[in-house]
């Protein structure tokens, strides 16, 4: 039977390193995805992800379990992302390569996806990434947490330290701006686009 996060945290606090490593395996990809989407740079997102787990490990004795372990991790990661953005004093960059490697493309392709569909999805992804980089940090983070991490409005409000109504406003304004950007770029968004 798979241990819960709480059980693994308790064992880690008792000095079981392997339990913490299991937590890392469980959460490294979501944390990396969050960091990448917020700051937009692959290498820096990797560093933020690494730093998140290092900080979590160091702070583990002080973690009392008031919040979910994942929420705690997300908070650490978001703080690190915010620090990175302030340090860089710039908006996230769109890092989509101009000439994608064909083998890379092939490996990304879904089982029922043609090359043409894959290329179209890559183009749309680049446009979305660019549009998201133009949003304010708060709007972008709210959308990322909602869309890709399935958080509730309340969870986002707790993470962002703002009222629930503010979260809704950020989502509305962010999505509206994204919509306008897509329309300007003549992007048709078909119904069948699958979440990846």
């Amino acid at each position, binding site marked *: 039977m798979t241990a819960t996060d709480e059980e693994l945290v308790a064992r880690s606090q008792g000095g079981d390193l392997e339990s913490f490593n299991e937590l890392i395996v469980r959460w*490294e990809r979501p944390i*990396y995805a969050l960091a990448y989407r917020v700051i937009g740079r*692959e290498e820096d997102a990797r560093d933020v992800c690494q730093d998140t787990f290092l900080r979590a490990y160091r702070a583990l004795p002080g973690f009392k379990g008031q919040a979910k372990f994942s929420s705690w991790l997300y908070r650490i990661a978001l703080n690190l992302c915010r620090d990175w953005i302030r340090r860089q004093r710039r908006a996230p960059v769109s890092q989509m390569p101009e000439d994608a490697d064909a083998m890379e493309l092939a490996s990304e392709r879904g089982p029922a996806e043609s090359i043409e569909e894959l290329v179209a999805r890559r183009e749309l992804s680049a446009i979305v990434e660019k549009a998201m980089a133009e949003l304010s940090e708060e709007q972008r983070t709210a959308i990322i947490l909602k*869309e890709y991490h399935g958080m509730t409005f309340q969870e986002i409000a707790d993470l962002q330290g703002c009222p629930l109504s503010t979260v*809704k406003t950020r989502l*509305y304004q962010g999505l509206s701006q994204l919509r306008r950007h897509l329309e300007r770029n003549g992007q048709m968004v078909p119904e069948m686009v699958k979440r990846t």
Partner: protein
Amino acid sequence: MNEIFQCGDHGALVGYLYDECTPEEREAIASHLTRCVSCADDVSGLSSARRALAAWAPPEIALGIQITRKSDAEMVTPSGSVLSFTRPQAERTPWWKAPLPAWAQVAAAIVIFAAGLSVGYVRNGARPAAVPQATVASTPPVAGPSKTDLEQLEQRLRVEMAQLAHANSPAAAPVPVTARASGDVTMEQVKALIADSERKQNIDFTERAVRQNATFEAQRRADLESVSTRIGTLQGQTRGELGQLQQGFNYLATRVSQQK
């Protein structure tokens, strides 16, 4: 508009969009959307933006983060642990840029060597009479490599190749590899490489074709617009000329009638 939902309440619309509202609110908003074009357009546009977001995926990378105990590492934690980070080996390089593996180099050497031997063998066998008699007399006859020699050489190279391939693959199981088995493995690897290459070329070609098609389509539209504009201009000019002819004809008709 009703007590539960006010038209233009963006927060409520977002709640409806993400299905984070009470059943009453949901029902009220759904009912409102059938009557209010503005709110319906809002919800439709936001849904469209959400669908586009599904296309945005972070790059797939190997993370491999883990905590290990090392006292001499830089980032030592209070408990003496350190966060080690396994980075991926290297950026993926195209296959044609990657250095040839040892087995491929050996295979290439075999092919070149065998070709050289074959050429020599054929030349010696095909033109024995061309060798001057004096030379034949002064030097002992040199026989070309026999088939057995070639087989022995091939066998030896295969053994060396197997050893090289084995040395280059640490993950391989430590069982003895026979020359024959190694040859099969090599053939499999060569076949896999060829298949990979064909697949890559196919994908590359399709991608280029898609881009080319898009460029061609854009050019075609621009040309059509240009042609349409020119036709319009020509039509305008023709109408002007026709008008002038008409005026001339009228003038002549008037003059003729006056002369009569």
